[in-house]
């Protein structure tokens, strides 16, 4: 399968970006260097082309009811303009994808944002369930015609407000409003994937160049920095930290119990999760700080000194803290913070300590 190119491909190419295939899209991985881009987001601001993300629109009288059945969080809690993080599960409670659900601020209906390459599959899932339950909704996979640009960092408010027709500085976290950027109608949301304050902007793909140009002068950032930033914030990556085929995990194992609303009468996967909550999970995700000069990468074994008790799903050298950090699943008896473990890195075992996976908050507090 050949990769799709984002609308800004040529602009990125002219900016000297290196590209990588990600979820069927040929996306910029670096513009300058991961560390330069990462530091810009932590210290000032950076902008990201995230048009690889999928967009599915659900409208109609039963839009909320249907979405509530298919996601773990409570959609009924959303007022117009609100957004929530959520999971889509199969009947076994295994995560198919993690999404953000937006209730439109200015019109009926919901927009939800699955990961790259998941739009069609998610839209089909919504449609199938709607016809099975005879619900009155329309579902549209708008991933093709929709672009997304993220502006993240302590200076993101200033950068975005200088571009938008309306003030957006007062938007609360996880809310969105409609406004224009150079006459392009956009949904501007106070959300992100970096651990910093900032915005994600949903726009017509055809207007990508106009909106991207509004952030000229802000450091462009690729998927490389997006990965180091999200990992420092302890945020999971779909397809890597959980994946239906290669890393099947429930939200309880993945530390995403906070987006599961057990009070809801029913949602796909609820019975399986209830049973799991009753019996406890065998493995769970932990943050790991590596105490030696080595990066623990996806697939590396985690040991208790003798036996393998887990494996790494994501790891990098933290540009902010200058120590190697990782996420991985371990047997629950080893999941307590402070537990000393080993990670097999090529031909040796390096020492690692279980720490709070929200590295950005907790390691800062240590410093």
């Amino acid at each position: 399968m050949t990769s799709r190119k984002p609308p800004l491909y040529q602009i990125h190419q002219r900016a000297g970006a290196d590209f990588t295939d990600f979820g069927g899209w040929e996306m910029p991985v670096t513009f300058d260097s991961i560390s330069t881009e990462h530091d810009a987001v932590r210290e000032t601001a950076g902008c990201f082309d995230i048009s690889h993300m999928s967009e599915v629109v659900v409208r109609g009288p039963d839009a909320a009811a249907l979405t509530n059945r298919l996601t773990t969080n409570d959609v009924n809690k959303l007022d117009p303009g609100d957004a929530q993080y959520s999971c889509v599960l199969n009947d076994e409670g295994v995560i198919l994808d993690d999404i953000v659900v937006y209730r439109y601020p200015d019109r009926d209906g919901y927009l939800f944002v699955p990961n790259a390459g998941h739009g069609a599959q998610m839209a089909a899932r919504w449609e199938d369930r709607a016809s099975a339950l005879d619900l009155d909704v329309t579902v549209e996979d708008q991933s093709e015609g929709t672009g997304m640009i993220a502006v993240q960092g302590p200076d993101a408010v200033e950068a975005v407000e200088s571009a938008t027709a309306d003030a957006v500085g007062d938007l609360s976290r996880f809310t969105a409003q409609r406004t224009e950027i150079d006459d392009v109608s956009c949904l501007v949301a106070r959300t992100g994937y970096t651990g910093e304050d900032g915005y994600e902007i949903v726009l017509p793909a055809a207007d990508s160049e106009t909106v991207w140009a509004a952030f000229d002068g802000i450091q462009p950032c690729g998927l490389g920095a997006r990965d180091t930033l999200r990992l420092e914030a302890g945020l999971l990556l779909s397809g890597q930290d959980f994946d239906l085929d290669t890393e099947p995990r429930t939200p309880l194992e993945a530390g995403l119990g906070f987006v599961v609303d057990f009070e809801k009468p029913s949602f796909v996967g609820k019975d399986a999760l209830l049973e799991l909550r009753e019996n406890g999970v065998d493995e769970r995700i932990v943050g790991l700080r590596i105490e030696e000069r080595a990066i623990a990468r996806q697939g590396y074994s985690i040991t208790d000194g003798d036996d393998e008790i887990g494996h790494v799903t994501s790891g990098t050298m933290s540009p902010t803290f200058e120590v190697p950090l990782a996420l991985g699943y371990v047997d629950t008896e080893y999941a307590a913070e402070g537990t000393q473990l080993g990670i097999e890195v090529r031909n040796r075992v390096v020492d690692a300590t279980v720490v709070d996976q929200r590295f950005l908050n907790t390691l800062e507090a240590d410093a």
Partner: protein
Amino acid sequence: MEFEIPSELRYAESHEWADDRSETVRVGISDFAQDELGDIVFVDLPSEGEGVGEGEEFGVLESIKAVSDIYTPVAGTIVATNEDVIDNPELVNEDPYGSGWLVEVEPEGELDHLLDASEYQEMI
């Protein structure tokens, strides 16, 4: 993109350079290689006195993106390692032919099999 390829050096197909203008051969990685790897964060080098065979891996460069073995372009004995790059791995990115050099080898073999600058330019 334009990469710096000094004409006075010889190059291995695995992207190391060798400087044979003095008794010992200084070895590093090319500008192209450092750019491919991106931010280098760890450098593992052998101890002085270790023998290495031609094309053998003698160390590891680890960047945020990837791990890469480094191979000796020439057989011989390691007579010096660059301690500065162990403490400051970013030197390999910033100055791959200068302060980012990796090891010096007392050669036992020939360097004839290596590429010259124009051949290396062709290859990348």
